[in-house]
């Protein structure tokens, strides 16, 4: 396949994933498109530095949003592979300097992957008075069991915020094992981690979110919405440790099972500082009959009702 074709296919799929992905390719938008281990498109604007090298299995990148830079339009990163099998390993270091503000949208597109490994090792450093959002949306095919291994370590500075959002609802999940570890290091830093996953067939969905609230007055919200059907399996581990005075944390996990799917959730909340407060709510189970019947009484079929409920949960 020619690079031009790969490029246009990836962009076409990315544009369906929302978040204004149609901006990919625009001159006033910062973006990078990677197919397998090749950077096939890139646009950089002042205030953003992307230092990327192609490796045997993917790319290594250092991305910096320089001091005080405010990027209005989301930065788009497209990582894809159109092949059936292979491997893509993305190693990245992102530095959001003091006072900078940016939102990154990562489109991970593997529409044909069957025997495939997509691994990401990310390190994110957020300075003081900065804000950074990293939203990752995956599009997988209907077949195969792609292995997805995103691992990230994030450190958040004083008065800064980090939003991490992971969505994998289109196509099969495959075999997902996502690990996020965030340290809210600075005083009054804020962390918001959300995961939305829709497991089907014999998919495996493992989520591990660990948040350390080390900064005074730091706060975190960890939210997971996992829908599992057929014979898929899901497990969620959310750990929030309030280790500083005034730290506030909350873990909110809902896992809905259908068919013979199996779910597990362990919200672990710890207040290792006496003046910290961490709470949790977790619900695992089938969709309540009253929810389904409520929509059926409006004329929807049972299947349509479930679809509406699930789409709302995964939004």
């Amino acid at each position, binding site marked *: 396949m020619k690079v031009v074709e790969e490029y246009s296919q990836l962009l076409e799929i990315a544009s369906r994933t929302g978040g204004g992905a149609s901006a990919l390719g625009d001159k006033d938008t910062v973006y990078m498109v990677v197919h397998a281990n090749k950077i096939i498109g890139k646009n950089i604007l002042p205030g953003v530095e992307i230092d990327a090298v192609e490796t045997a299995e993917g790319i290594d990148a250092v991305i910096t949003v320089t001091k005080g830079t405010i990027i209005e339009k989301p930065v788009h990163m497209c990582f894809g592979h159109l092949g059936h099998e292979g491997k893509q390993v993305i190693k990245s270091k992102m530095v959001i300097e003091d006072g900078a503000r940016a939102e990154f949208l990562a489109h991970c597109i593997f529409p044909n992957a069957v025997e495939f490994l997509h691994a990401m090792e990310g390190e994110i450093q957020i300075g003081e008075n900065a804000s950074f959002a990293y939203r990752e949306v995956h599009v997988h095919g209907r077949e195969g069991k792609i292995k997805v291994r995103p691992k990230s370590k994030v450190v958040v500075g004083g008065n800064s915020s980090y939003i991490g959002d992971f969505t994998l609802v289109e196509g099969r999940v495959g075999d997902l094992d996502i690990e996020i570890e965030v340290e809210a290091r600075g005083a009054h830093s804020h962390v918001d981690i959300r995961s939305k996953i829709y497991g089907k067939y014999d998919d495996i969905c493992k989520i591990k979110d660990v948040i350390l609230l080390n900064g005074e007055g730091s706060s975190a919200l960890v939210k997971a*919405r996992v829908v599992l059907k057929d014979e898929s399996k899901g497990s969620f581990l959310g750990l929030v440790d309030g280790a500083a005075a005034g730290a506030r944390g909350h873990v909110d996990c*809902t896992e809905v099972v259908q068919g013979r799917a199996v779910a597990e959730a362990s919200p672990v909340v710890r207040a290792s500082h006496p003046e910290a407060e961490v709470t949790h709510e977790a619900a695992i189970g089938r969709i*309540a*009959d*009253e*929810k389904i*019947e*409520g*929509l*059926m*009484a*409006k*004329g*929807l*079929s*049972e299947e349509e009702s479930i679809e*509406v*409920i699930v*789409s*709302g*949960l*995964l*939004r």
Partner: protein
Amino acid sequence: MIWGENKLKESLLYVDDITVMREEKEVLKDVSIKVLPGEITGILGRNGAGKSSLAYAVMGLPNYKPKKGAMYFRGQDITNWGITERARAGITLAWQHPARYEGISVAEYLKISSRKEIDVRKMEEALNLVQLESSYLSRKVDKSLSGGERKRIELASVYLMNSQLTILDEPDSGVDLLAMADIISLFRKMTENGRSVLIITHREDVASQCDRSYLMCSGEIVLEGTAEAVRRYFLSQCIPCPEHKDETGETQE
């Protein structure tokens, strides 16, 4: 039976002698009611009388399938119909405690109700009738709504459905902000063009606004008559309840 056939012909809904069991208990015993076109019919009864169970049986909830008796809607035997079929045929229910839906906006929820494209103006008009501002359209039908707001959205939703038969289960509970006159005029709107409303309530002042009422007690219909007759009987015989030693006669919803 000729008597039965007549009832069948003139009624929009005819519930014929149904008994419904829940865990070995008869929550409805030999219940018969009819709902006539263009009328508001009331089911009055104290807490635990079996009123919601009757609503669920009419709506077709699988757990409330009668073990005996039959139900007819527009002359058709619907006893074995599912919820969706009944809804599509023109029966709907505004639940006593409507379910919550994470991520679904009020606008989307109202659209589901009408089952076709519906313009914003109509939705705003429906919200207006239950005294909610149009800004509610972008709210979510989730835990963030108060009980009263959720109930009012349910009323707006069934209003937009335009069903032949709208069952309202304790429609006034939690909607204190709406004046009785407003709420009754909303129910009257739901009876336009020969459509009917079945109101389930434990409040005799609500029941007294109906065209006809039934009084329910321990899963049985104990009286059928004009709203006024049923109201008087209820006030004199049911408060306090002779069987449940209860001084005040107060019922919680």
